[in-house]
């Protein structure tokens, strides 16, 4: 389609996904962990848009639209849960949120 090969976009997307995984595993602040999940969702979106564009098929972009909807819903509910936890524990450090740990 363009002068840029599809593989470049896929590699960029894979890199961003791995950075998101690293962030989820090393960060201790629950809100930053949430932001890393958004980063991973975005890297998946980049893959979808790249394939959609290279195939000349709009359905991939329709799917990206739904992914964004789910991400918005997830952010709203997740942040509400974080606020509720903060109200009880006065902390968002995920090492201290371990009430389900046996």
């Amino acid at each position, binding site marked *: 389609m363009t002068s840029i090969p*599809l593989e470049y976009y896929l590699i960029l997307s*894979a890199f961003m996904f791995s950075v998101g*995984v690293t962030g989820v595993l090393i960060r201790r602040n629950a809100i930053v962990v*949430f932001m890393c999940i958004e980063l991973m969702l975005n890297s998946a979106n980049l893959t979808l848009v790249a394939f959609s564009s290279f195939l*000349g098929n709009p359905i991939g972009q329709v799917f990206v639209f739904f992914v964004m909807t789910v991400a918005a819903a997830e952010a709203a509910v997740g942040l509400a849960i974080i606020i509720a936890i903060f109200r009880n524990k006065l902390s968002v450090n995920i090492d201290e949120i371990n009430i389900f740990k046996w």
Partner: protein
Amino acid sequence: MNLEIILFIVLALVAVVSSVAMITRPHPVISAVFLILNFFALSGLYLLLNAQFIAVVQVIVYAGAIMVLFLFVLMLLNTNKEDNIFKQNKALKIFAIAIAVLIFAQVAFLIFFSSPSDALNSQVAESVQSGTIQQIGTKLYTDYILPFEAAGFLLLAATIGALVLSKKKFE
């Protein structure tokens, strides 16, 4: 070297650097700002891929709505910054980075050895056509009307859920 490749390299570099900066800055607000920068770079990449509608929605919904929500929660909670991200619990951190490198190596291996672009022969005209708001709107309101309604219902449920969860007391 034409303008398209230069733009791709600049935007990809911004995306990579801002994502790495996001997970290494100790202060959560600075992480959020780097994530917004990353979203803008991605929006530019979507424009390079002829996906105009998604590029605009990316800026409005992600960089606008979702990140403002994050920044509001950060402001309300006033969390202190995470010093020594890499100092404490070192074995776990090294393990985490090893896992991420493994994931990246695996995906990159698949991408290089399957070379997915050989299988597609796309035309520029088709690609430009597919990213317009007209095409996406037509698909969304004809073939995908049921998922579209479900997405609307999901957003309603999420709004009510967020309200219930952030009430002062659970009854």
